[in-house]
């Protein structure tokens, strides 16, 4: 056990051994590659003169956008924790009926792209939406306002809380429940036992999930745009569309501001995460199940409310489109082809594999060799996650075209660029999950293998890696899921004629052919749901 303070710049005193040079260089190179596209943003932003920049950044709109974005991130992050932690506790530690069902149902919202969720909510609960139409004969003239902050926060919360839910579950499953029992025998109340024993143990997992939520909220464009709430991404989009040089400048400045906010979030997470607890020799035990008693009913209502709202609304709306779309005449080029699904799965699988491999050394270094350098490398790997896809895409178009030469013209480097964009954006999911995996494998195990004569590499491969595999695979699956949903970078970097499920959904929706959007959207949800089931089947991080 080596608990330690994870201060902003941890010293190397808690490290197991000095930094291995090769591994550090490898991780450093990966982190540098990931941060590299930011050079373009920085260069663009620096082209704006100091005074102009100051004027732009202190404009009323810019300030409001900053406040709005910060507020949305704070509220969504707090709300996801408030929902996800109790839900995770209910599904792991209590006698909640149908626990397995609820685990699956409550994880599933992660497979619904948040922009489809937002569409669905607007069309269901909007001023002239489906629900209002149904209720109109009953004399209900208007529903509570869905647009604006409320709608954006609601939808973002519903489609991101599974990040916290899944990681908290994993942590609850592997923590040593005997500690809670011990606390109870020491006459602690249930709440006090939870506060003093459980919370410190699950805190790293909760903050890791919350970090993904916060950064996702910051980078998502679709939800705030649909909900008409001005945040960084939405204004960056509008500025880029304004096609004035001025607009480009402001877009670059705002992107830079966005990156700075990301750094602040990373620093906060680093402080809040507290001490990482290393697993107790991989022998966690289940404590006694908490009996809910009469609390069973409110607990069930909470599960049903959250899962129902997040899943039934979009699936219902998509199905309605599908049924009505049947009679709709539409452009032949919009007919669905299975090729789109294969393309989506193909690039997502490659991105997941690459991100998983790239995340491995970074996560290993961060857990086993704590130092300022490894801390910096791990944090750097998160930065790309908050950069909007369109900004990332344009940056890579720039580099690809400038330095790709004929390879770019012949589109030979577009796939590598596309995969790179995905890895830059989603690497943190792999790093976070793999990191959690390493935390649960005691280093003494590989030490034991070393004493039995194994080389460090052999000890890692034969002992540590198999134990970390679930975390690694869980992270890769998370990257797979997110890549399936990604649109802006895909549109910019895909080779001409290469269509995926989301680019097809985009074309169909853009031309108002909703029937044609419904099929790929449902296919997307089903394929993602399957990979989610795989993830849940191995329970992500459950080492046993």
């Amino acid at each position, binding site marked *: 056990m080596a608990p330690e303070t994870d201060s902003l710049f941890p010293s190397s005193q808690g490290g197991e051994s000095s930094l291995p040079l090769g591994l550090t260089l490898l991780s450093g190179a990966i982190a540098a590659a990931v941060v590299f596209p930011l050079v373009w943003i920085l260069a663009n932003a620096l082209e704006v003169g100091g005074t102009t920049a100051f004027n732009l950044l202190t404009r009323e709109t810019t300030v409001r956008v900053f406040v709005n974005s910060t507020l949305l991130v704070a509220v969504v992050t707090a709300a996801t924790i408030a929902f996800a932690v109790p839900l995770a506790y209910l599904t792991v530690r209590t006698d909640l009926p149908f626990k397995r069902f609820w685990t699956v149902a409550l994880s599933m919202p992660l497979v619904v792209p948040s922009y489809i969720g*937002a569409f669905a909510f607007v069309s269901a609960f909007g001023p002239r939406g489906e629900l209002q139409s149904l209720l109109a004969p009953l004399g209900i003239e208007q529903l509570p306002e869905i647009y604006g902050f409320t709608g954006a926060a609601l939808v973002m919360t519903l489609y991101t809380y599974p990040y916290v839910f899944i990681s908290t579950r994993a942590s609850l499953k592997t923590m040593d429940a005997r500690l809670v029992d011990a606390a109870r025998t020491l006459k602690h109340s249930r709440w006090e036992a939870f506060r003093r024993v459980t919370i410190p143990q699950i805190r790293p997992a909760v903050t890791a999930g919350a970090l993904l939520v916060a950064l996702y909220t910051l980078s998502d464009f679709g939800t705030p745009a649909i909900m008409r709430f001005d945040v960084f991404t939405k204004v960056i989009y509008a500025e880029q569309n304004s096609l004035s040089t001025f607009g480009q400048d402001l877009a670059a400045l705002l992107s830079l501001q966005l990156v700075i906010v990301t750094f602040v979030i990373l620093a906060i997470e680093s402080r809040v995460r507290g001490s990482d607890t290393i697993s107790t020799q991989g022998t966690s035990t289940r404590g006694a199940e908490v009996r809910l008693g009469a609390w069973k009913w409110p607990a069930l209502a909470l599960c049903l409310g959250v899962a129902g709202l997040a899943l039934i609304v979009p699936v219902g709306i998509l199905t309605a489109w599908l049924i009505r779309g049947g009679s709709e005449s539409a452009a032949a080029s919009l007919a669905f082809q299975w090729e789109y699904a294969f393309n989506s799965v193909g690039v997502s699988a490659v991105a997941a594999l690459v991100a998983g491999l790239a995340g491995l050394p970074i996560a290993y270094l961060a857990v086993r060799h704590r130092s300022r350098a490894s801390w910096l490398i791990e944090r750097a790997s998160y930065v790309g996650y908050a950069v909007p896809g369109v900004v990332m895409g344009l940056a890579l178009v720039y580099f690809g075209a400038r330095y790709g030469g004929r390879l770019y013209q012949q589109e030979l480097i577009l796939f590598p660029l596309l995969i790179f964009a995905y890895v830059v954006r989603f690497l943190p999911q792999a790093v976070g999950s793999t990191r959690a995996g390493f935390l649960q494998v005691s280093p003494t195990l590989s030490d034991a293998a070393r004493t039995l004569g194994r080389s460090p590499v052999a000890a890692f491969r034969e002992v540590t890696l198999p134990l970390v595999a679930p975390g690694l695979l869980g992270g890769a699956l998370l990257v797979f899921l997110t890549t399936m949903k990604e649109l802006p970078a895909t549109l910019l970097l895909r080779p*001409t004629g290469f269509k995926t499920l989301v680019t097809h959904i985009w074309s169909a929706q853009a031309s108002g052919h909703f029937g044609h959007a419904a099929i790929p959207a449902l296919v997307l949800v089903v394929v993602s749901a399957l990979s989610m089931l795989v993830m849940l089947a191995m329970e992500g991080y459950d080492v046993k």
Partner: protein
Amino acid sequence: MDSRDTSDASPAGSRNRRASGTSRRRFLQSAGTLAGVASLAGCTQFMSGEETNTTETPEFGQIGSGRLGDQIQGGTSMKDMPDLSGEITIYSGRGEALVGELIAYIESLYPELDIQPRYEGSSQLVQKILNEGQNSPADVFFSVNAGSLGFLADENRTEPLPSEITDMVRTEFHDPDGNWVGTSGRARTIPYNTDSLSESDLPTDIMAFPDQEQLRDSMGWAPSYGSFQAFVTAMRILNGEEATKQWLEGMLDLGVEEYTDEFAIALAVADGEIDAGFTNHYYIQRVLADREDAPLATAFTEGDAGAIFNVAGACVVDTAADPEMAANFVRHLLSAEAQAYFATTTYEYPLIPDVEPVGNLPTIDELNPPANLDLTQLSDIRPTLDLMREVGISV
């Protein structure tokens, strides 16, 4: 936090009427609403917000000889244009659902021709070309508006078109230096419900609308929609910031209803949910194509921002492998077949003489767009967005 949502002002009756409508109509309505939403969606970082809603299936097997062929009134046929061959990459800001069949048709005419279309938002494609520098694979840029064409020309990234091509359209619909040419037109209009209004009830001056008490709580607009923003930009250029701000505030005070898409506005007017609105002309025609007897008609204002006539168009990018071939592709967009296609399938204004618009519309010559307005300025929407946000419209 958010701006007002003017839909609260909707009269109760209209909701009930709407609720009792057919499911087909409701679908179209929600589809229209959602399409507008789609134009903003994340998914849609890339959308121009312009290319939404078709109701027609382009039947291109028939172009040239069948349904459309019968309607070709004038212009040069593709048959009489120079042959196309080789590979041409087209960056199309116009949606695949709208122009995909036309491009496929041109490709099918020539065995040696391989067209690689790439559909994204117009603004994103401009930025992509700029970022790609001299390594861009783009030969032709096909845009939804004049602004993005003008922007590319200002960045010196266009290859001038031969005057024999630009001269096919009137002077105001192509760049004076030949950097781009308009291929179809879209007019700003006032759709109105003929059951509740007659044309004379509507002012011919756009600035007079906020004062029309008879229109209280019965007009619709779509402030997040690209063409609407271009219209407000025109007002800003023609009438100044202060007058534009007052106009926006006046309309809000009048209780204008907010929609996410202009097709939805045209449908709402046809349904009697509102009496009038602000839309591009073709949305009205698309509603009428589905429902001939809908009580829906088109009114125009005169010589002001309410009557701007913007064009979709094309240019040859300076990275074109064979600029002559690329220019000849653009020429095909001005052929009799393509112009008839725009008239009958997208309900836009054909730009070559002798091809008439479809539907109950005045000819181009009868329109009264504001004089001396540079269409390429209309893409400078940033100050417009500021203005709209200032009065409390969330865009």
